[in-house]
């Protein structure tokens, strides 16, 4: 049961083979057993979870169940959830019991999904290794010495370790895809604006994307059906009709044009990761795909552009943490400014402080044009690169990260080295395109490696189709770590 997909759990619940309460209890027991070593969850509340599960069973008995009623889910601790601590991985919000729920949380609850707990993450989603959490690093279930990837490391590790069948997550510069890749699970971030940001604690608003992590592409499609949709409380939510993301899953791939960006296979890509991506491409060719070479010439510039735009937006977003309306407040101060400065010095971790300061600097008088406007112009060049590439292909394939998961502590002392590990994911956020990671093999050190699938705007159903067909032909997504 613990290895079942959402699709299978949905069928078992519908057939009455298992109840939502039994299912929730089984996952809670497994969390109690394994979370002490993995640290994938910040908050677990057995009584609350079992009450939600009992309500789901009652709903099913009353004949009002949806496909996912009674299916358990872990929420990344960035999504506000009424009555639950929503810490965002920060000391700043360690005492914050949210008075309201994010749209994503509301949607999952409306479908009858049962909250298993709140997944660990890098503080305010700033990090690539999940070592920046106030609650300590998450461990990779495949190798406890490895990072799980960040910032949605708790979500990915929970699904990989079968502590949850699916989890919500967010992706601002890659935070869904590298964790999914490093933990051997499937994750997707849809087109910017497809999932509401209402109640998702803001990091860099023009780059923040919500999305699911699960075992399979089919499960991700089921989750997107629940999570996506217009929400008027998010000013950039897309006003589009609800779509069924499962609708193209079973289509054959004959004639699919797959673009391989030469910049993604250049210097810097580890040879074992390169071999895994090559075999995945060969597999898709067997399924009828045609391969074309494309170019994304400004890929390298995505790093500097991202590390201007994201900190700039973060410095504005995180100004709300002032010790006045919610969250931490310093215990001693001499005046208002002193209270702000001490509250924020105590409440934020070092990476968050760094990004706020970088953002403050690039937005400050005399530097705005040289940094912020310049970065926005480069953002346009990067988006135009993708536009040109998609003129010749249906999806773009490549690695998610240059290497398999690195060791805990390996890069935590050098922020710039850490930033460079997101080379293949940042540009996608700058463009606002949908992208996903699909398990594709294991590196020489035995750690999982994911294949990245990037689609054009609103091409989620096509990407999920490619991923699903790949998963029908391979079994990487069914491998689970020995724990």
């Amino acid at each position, binding site marked *: 049961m613990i290895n079942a997909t959402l699709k299978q759990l949905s069928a078992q619940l519908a057939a009455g083979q298992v109840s939502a309460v039994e299912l929730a209890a089984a996952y809670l027991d497994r969390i109690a057993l394994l979370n002490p070593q993995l640290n994938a969850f910040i908050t677990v509340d057995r009584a609350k979870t079992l009450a939600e599960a009992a309500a789901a069973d009652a709903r099913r008995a009353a004949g009002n169940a949806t496909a996912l009623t009674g299916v358990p889910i872990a929420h990344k601790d960035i999504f506000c959830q009424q009555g639950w601590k929503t810490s965002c991985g920060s000391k700043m919000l360690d005492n914050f019991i949210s008075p309201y729920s994010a749209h994503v949380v509301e949607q999952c609850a409306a479908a009858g999904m049962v909250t298993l707990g709140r997944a660990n993450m890098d503080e305010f989603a700033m990090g690539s290794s999940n070592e920046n959490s106030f609650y300590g690093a998450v461990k990779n279930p495949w190798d406890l010495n490895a990072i799980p990837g960040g910032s949605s490391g708790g979500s990915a590790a929970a699904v990989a370790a079968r502590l949850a069948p699916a989890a919500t997550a967010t992706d601002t510069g890659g935070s869904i895809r590298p964790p999914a890749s490093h933990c051997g699970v499937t994750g997707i971030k849809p087109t910017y604006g497809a999932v509401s940001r209402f109640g998702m604690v803001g990091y860099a608003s023009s780059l923040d994307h919500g999305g699911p992590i699960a075992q399979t592409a089919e499960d991700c499609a089921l989750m997107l059906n629940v999570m996506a949709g217009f929400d008027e409380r998010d000013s950039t939510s*897309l006003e589009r009709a609800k779509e069924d993301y499962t609708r193209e899953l079973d289509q054959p791939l004959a004639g699919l044009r797959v673009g391989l960006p030469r910049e993604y296979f250049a210097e810097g890509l580890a040879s074992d990761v390169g071999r895994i991506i090559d075999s995945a491409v060969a597999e898709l060719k067997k399924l009828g795909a045609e391969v074309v070479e494309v170019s994304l010439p400004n890929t390298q510039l995505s790093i500097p552009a991202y590390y201007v735009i994201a900190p700039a937006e973060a410095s504005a977003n995180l*100004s709300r943490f002032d010790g006045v309306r919610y969250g931490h407040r310093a215990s001693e101060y001499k005046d*208002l400014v*002193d*209270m702000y400065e001490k509250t924020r010095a105590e409440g934020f971790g070092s990476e968050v402080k760094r990004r*706020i*300061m970088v953002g*403050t600097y690039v937005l400050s008088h005399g530097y705005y044009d040289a940094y912020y406007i310049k970065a926005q112009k480069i953002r*346009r*060049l990067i988006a135009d690169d993708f536009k040109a590439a998609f003129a010749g292909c249906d999806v773009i394939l490549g690695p998610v990260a240059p290497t398999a998961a690195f060791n805990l502590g390996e890069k935590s002392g050098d922020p710039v080295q850490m930033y460079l590990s997101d080379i293949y994911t940042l540009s996608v956020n700058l463009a606002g395109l949908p992208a996903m990671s699909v398990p594709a093999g294991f590196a020489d050190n035995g750690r999982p490696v994911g294949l990245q699938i990037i689609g054009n705007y609103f091409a989620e159903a096509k990407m999920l189709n490619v991923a699903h067909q790949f998963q029908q032909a391979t079994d990487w997504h069914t491998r689970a770590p020995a724990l």
Partner: protein
Amino acid sequence: MSLTHEDVARIARLSRIAVTDAEIEAVGKQLNNILGLIEQMQAVNTDGIEPMAHPQDVSLRLREDAVTEPDRREVCQAVAPQVEKGLFLVPKVIE
């Protein structure tokens, strides 16, 4: 270009983050490393390129000028550090 200790102190002040004298050296070094990374942008000619603020060139929606939020003051203030008679308390601002 390299930030001096005075620059770092000014940025910290603008950011409303207390940075102690003991921390300033290390913080400055890391900020300078990051700014060095960012400098790569200056090598690219971007004349005539329109800045892109957002993935979709969306305009803000208008809605009816109607009340959409209920009064939830007590619930929202329950998570505030210091509240009295429905007001958020802060250190004295005006003498």
